[in-house]
């Protein structure tokens, strides 16, 4: 462990040999296409699929009414965050009414995809458009248009947690800051869209569902709950899966439809999402209005934090929709220790695509709000943003420590991470350059922005998950078996879709067993291969699933030691294990390799009496606590004050995810996460118009940044082991999306603060930045004098900005 082993997965991926769901072709397989609503809210007044059925090659066409009996459970939501949470029924195909653009009206099954797609155009459908409700505040007003007419209002839930005397702290504070931040909606954009093939299992009855999913084990349960097909008659396989970012941490209506139709027709059915559908009908992320308040002393000590949030559910609840914000609530306290905290969240229905987990899922929202307001506090007090942070950090700790929000952070040393980040970025030099540019009225101004974040990973203790309203089952399972030939099979309940578990789990097993990583084969993504599993999301895989592998290997070694002692005719207490060899203490020439022990165990003829043959151990690990990775990021921006264009010149990230199994993989996770975090800060937003049409419906309009938009990252690490597991590992998959957005926005505001700019919303696209500059200068947009950026007005602006 700790070596930068090249990823075992990559040769197949880069030579086109990966086995994507869309590559699966089964005999007699049919193709499903879906008619989706162009309206965000409408009654279906007429629907007739018969003309589609008349088209050559079309085998079946279904309305919601046709199949309603096949999915009594609808599309289930697994989360209940309050007792009175409203959970609307989501039929895989709607009946009567559509509630967002992309809602499914009918399904066509044909011999090929083109025929199915053409047949959709033959379906007769009439809509009576209804009023839409797109914005959360409007949705909560009295008399607002209802997303679901059978509900009394658009409030899904009202959740609150409070600790300490929040009111008192705000009354006594020297300084109170209240700001509103917007977490825009984001489209996850996995490179492989969703895809599903469902078939009857020709071998032994039941059904096999192949799906581009992060969660084959959850899917097996949810498909059963939805359709009533017994859980033990469903096998779910996740073949190679091309990214998910949370969007495939779900069980979707299309998977249910494919299964039900395959069952009905007795024929394999494939559905592959195109990118337009992906934008409309795969879950979106974020969508939160944040009223954030901090109470502090004049010296910069935080006394209390109060977060009041509206969280956008969209039109329905998907697997975890309501719990995403709730699971992040306690993280609004950030890396600061203080006395009083409250967080209130209202979940709100709108006529938009449902939201759910997107890389970070609750924590980027929290980190952004607390890191923004700490910067505002520093500005208000005229302090350096790092100085304010240092006043409120925890002293370094390595045992669980209570937070104002009721969690127990596992271990933390923010001071070390910040010190390293300042050194790496040459903070003093940056401030000097910034000062020079300000004095020279450079039209391009330098900004220096920080984010000192923590997050919550390693989902998680089953009890804690039950407390969040998702039942529990936060464990992860592994089966490790050594074969006759000394090779190793590791079956894991995690389900990688780009993370590199085959490599990292091989390293963990190789270290524990004294074999090489090449001797280890990692099996995953199939409920028949790894019967117990809770899958991959929330940066949980290593800290829970990797630990299960490690502990199962320890069990193998323990048993092998007994057999080795038997083979060496020595006492077990005298056997030492190192480098794949069992030897008798003090007599290193008396030894036996683990491969020989494995063969002996398999053959069973020369093992201790009464012992089961074989080296085949299961482990189910349920951690005692979450893990809390943390880090310090410094973002250096250049903002063209004449055009509002922001360029990230440098990005320094010091992240602490505990001990690292594979630094190449960890760096890769950070690069990708930072790119997506920067994307939220500067580029991406899912925009709907007032009629409910998704305006950013393609990659032309939705601003995913490319390589030219992104900086070179300078990465470093500190290592603070977690006490939550025996390897001390924490998780790193989402660190970038959590750490980056506030660092970027804080940087832009820092650069423009002499102009009086104190706030910019995400994404900070040029027009928005330019308008913020115009507004701060109190000039009407358009009357800009060309030829220089800051000029004479800057003195006034500085005063004006120092509110």
């Amino acid at each position: 462990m700790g070596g930068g082993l090249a990823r075992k997965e990559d040769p197949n991926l880069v030579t086109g040999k990966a086995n994507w769901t869309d590559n699966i072709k089964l005999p007699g397989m049919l193709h499903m296409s879906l008619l989706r609503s162009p309206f965000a809210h409408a009654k279906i007044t007429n629907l007739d699929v018969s003309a589609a059925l008349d088209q050559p090659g079309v085998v079946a066409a279904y309305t919601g009414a046709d199949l309603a009996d096949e999915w009594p459970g609808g599309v289930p939501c697994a989360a209940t965050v309050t007792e009175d949470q409203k959970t609307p029924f989501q039929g895989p195909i709607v009946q009567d009414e559509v509630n967002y653009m992309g809602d499914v009206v009918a399904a066509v099954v044909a011999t090929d995809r083109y025929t199915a797609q053409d047949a959709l155009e033959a379906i007769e459908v009439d809509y009576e458009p209804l009023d839409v409700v797109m914005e959360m505040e409007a949705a909560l007003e009295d008399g607002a248009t209802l997303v679901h007419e059978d509900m009394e209002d658009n409030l899904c839930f009202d959740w609150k947690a409070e600790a300490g005397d929040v009111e008192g702290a705000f009354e006594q504070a020297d300084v109170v800051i209240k700001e509103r931040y917007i977490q825009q909606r984001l489209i996850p954009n996995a490179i492989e869209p969703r895809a599903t093939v469902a078939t009857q299992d020709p071998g032994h009855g039941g059904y096999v569902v192949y799906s581009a999913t992060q969660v084959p084990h959850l899917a097996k349960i949810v498909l059963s709950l939805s359709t009533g097909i017994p859980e033990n008659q469903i096998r779910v396989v996740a073949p190679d899966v091309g990214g998910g970012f949370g969007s495939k941490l779900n069980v979707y209506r299309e998977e249910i439809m494919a299964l039900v139709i395959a069952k009905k027709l007795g024929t394999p059915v494939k559905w592959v999402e195109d990118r337009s559908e992906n934008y409309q009908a795969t879950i979106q992320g974020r969508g939160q209005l944040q009223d954030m308040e901090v109470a502090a002393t004049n010296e910069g000590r935080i006394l209390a934090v109060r977060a009041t949030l509206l969280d956008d559910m969209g039109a329905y609840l998907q697997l975890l929709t309501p719990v995403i914000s709730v699971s992040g609530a306690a993280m609004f306290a950030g890396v600061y220790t203080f006395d009083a905290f409250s967080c209130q969240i209202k979940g709100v229905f709108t006529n938009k695509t449902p939201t759910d987990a997107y890389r970070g899922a609750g924590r980027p929202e929290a980190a952004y709000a607390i890191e923004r307001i700490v910067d505002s506090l520093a500005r208000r007090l005229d302090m350096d943003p790092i100085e304010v942070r240092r006043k409120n950090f925890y002293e370094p700790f390595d045992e669980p420590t209570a937070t104002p929000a009721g969690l127990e952070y596992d271990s933390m040393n923010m001071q070390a991470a910040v010190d390293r980040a300042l050194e790496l970025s040459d903070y003093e030099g940056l401030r000097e350059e910034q000062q020079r540019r300000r004095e020279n009225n450079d039209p391009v101004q330098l900004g220096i922005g920080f984010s000192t974040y923590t997050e919550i990973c390693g989902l998680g203790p089953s009890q804690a998950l039950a407390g969040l309203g998702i039942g529990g089952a936060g464990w992860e399972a592994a089966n490790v078996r050594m074969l006759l030939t000394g090779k190793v099979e590791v079956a894991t309940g995690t389900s990688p879709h780009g993370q590199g578990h085959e490599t990292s789990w091989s390293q963990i097993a190789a270290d524990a067993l004294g074999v090489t990583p090449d001797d280890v084969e990692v099996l995953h993504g199939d409920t028949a291969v790894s019967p117990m599993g809770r899958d991959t999301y929330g940066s949980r895989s290593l800290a829970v699933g990797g630990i299960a592998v490690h502990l199962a290997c320890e069990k193998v070694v323990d048993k092998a030691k007994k057999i080795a002692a038997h083979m060496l005719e020595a006492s077990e207490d005298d056997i030492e294990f190192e480098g794949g060899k069992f030897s008798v203490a003090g007599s290193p020439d008396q030894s036996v390799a683990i491969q020989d022990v494995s063969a002996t165990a398999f053959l069973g003829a020369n093992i201790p009496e009464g012992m089961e043959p074989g080296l085949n151990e299961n482990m189910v690990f349920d951690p005692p606590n979450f893990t809390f990775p943390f880090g310090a990021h410094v973002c250096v921006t250049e903002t063209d004050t004449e055009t509002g264009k922001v360029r990230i010149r440098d990005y320094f990230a010091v992240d602490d995810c505990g001990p690292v199994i594979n630094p190449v993989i960890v760096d890769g996770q950070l690069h990708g996460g930072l790119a997506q975090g920067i994307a939220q800060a500067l580029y991406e937003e899912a925009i709907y118009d007032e009629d409910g049409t998704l305006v950013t419906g393609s990659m032309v309009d939705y601003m995913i940044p490319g390589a030219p938009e992104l900086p070179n990252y300078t990465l470093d690490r500190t290592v603070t082991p977690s006490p939550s597991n025996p390897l001390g590992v924490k998780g790193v998959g989402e660190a970038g999306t959590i750490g980056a957005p506030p660092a970027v926005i804080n940087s832009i505001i820092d650069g423009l603060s002499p102009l009086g700019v104190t706030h910019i919303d995400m994404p900070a696209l040029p027009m928005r930045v330019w308008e913020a500059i115009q507004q701060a200068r109190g000039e009407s947009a358009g009357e800009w004098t060309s030829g220089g950026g800051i000029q004479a007005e800057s003195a006034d602006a500085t005063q004006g900005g120092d509110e």
Partner: protein
Amino acid sequence: MQPVSFDYEVAESVDHAIDLLKENGEDAKVLAGGHSLIPLLRLRLAAPTVLVDVGRIDGLNYVRDDGDQLAIGALTHHRQLLHNELVQEHCGILGYTAGLLGDPSVQHRGTIGGAVSHGDPSGDMPSVIRALEGEIVVQGPDGGRTISAEDFFLDYLYTALDPLEIVTEVRVPKLSSDTGWSYKKFSRRSQDWAIVGVAAVVEKSNGNIGSARIGLTSMGSTPIRATAVEEALSGASPDDVAEAAKSADEGTSPASDDAASEEFRRHLARVWTRRAVEEALGR
């Protein structure tokens, strides 16, 4: 991608292509690099029944030195323009701009003929060709004609090309050694269409500006010239550039959309014109 089904015809020559267009009437569409047409097919916004692929016609992929002009075959890819020595020597702005279009894979497929025929006012090539006062050579059933860039771009996605005509060549002037140029593209991402683009071709004369031609991208329904700036810069000193650039948006009619408001586009046109002319003077 699941387009509506269509027939696919490969044109072996320009005449063959015109014949195919004649045979199939309004339902036929010319396909070259495909970078404008294919996305429309994918979204089923266009549903031609016949695609006439002109991309394999021999002899339309060239850059020739033709007296005081460069003659560029319509099927010349942007990437070829970027690396072409004649273009680099005589008309650098064209190659430089080609290198800003989309991304490398787009540049390898997209053609100058396609970029011109599409008539997209947010395309970079049309405004550069207008600033260069280039010419478009087209062929139709009754033979060929040469249309000035000024007369070619008529309205949004609408050009002087008749339905049975095909662009075969683009002609641009060879720039003299005392002519500086710049193309400034402002876009949210490098691969995007320009929110505003400014092409400046400036003849220098004894330390002053002799004449300047300014083409604007995304400032109206066609690629247009910033004539007020051009007039103000005629015979002007470099010190006058900032003042002259303030009229860059005069007579323009930029759209307001999610990428930029009209006001922001007007502002960018002024800033970008100033910077483009300054850069041209230094080049």
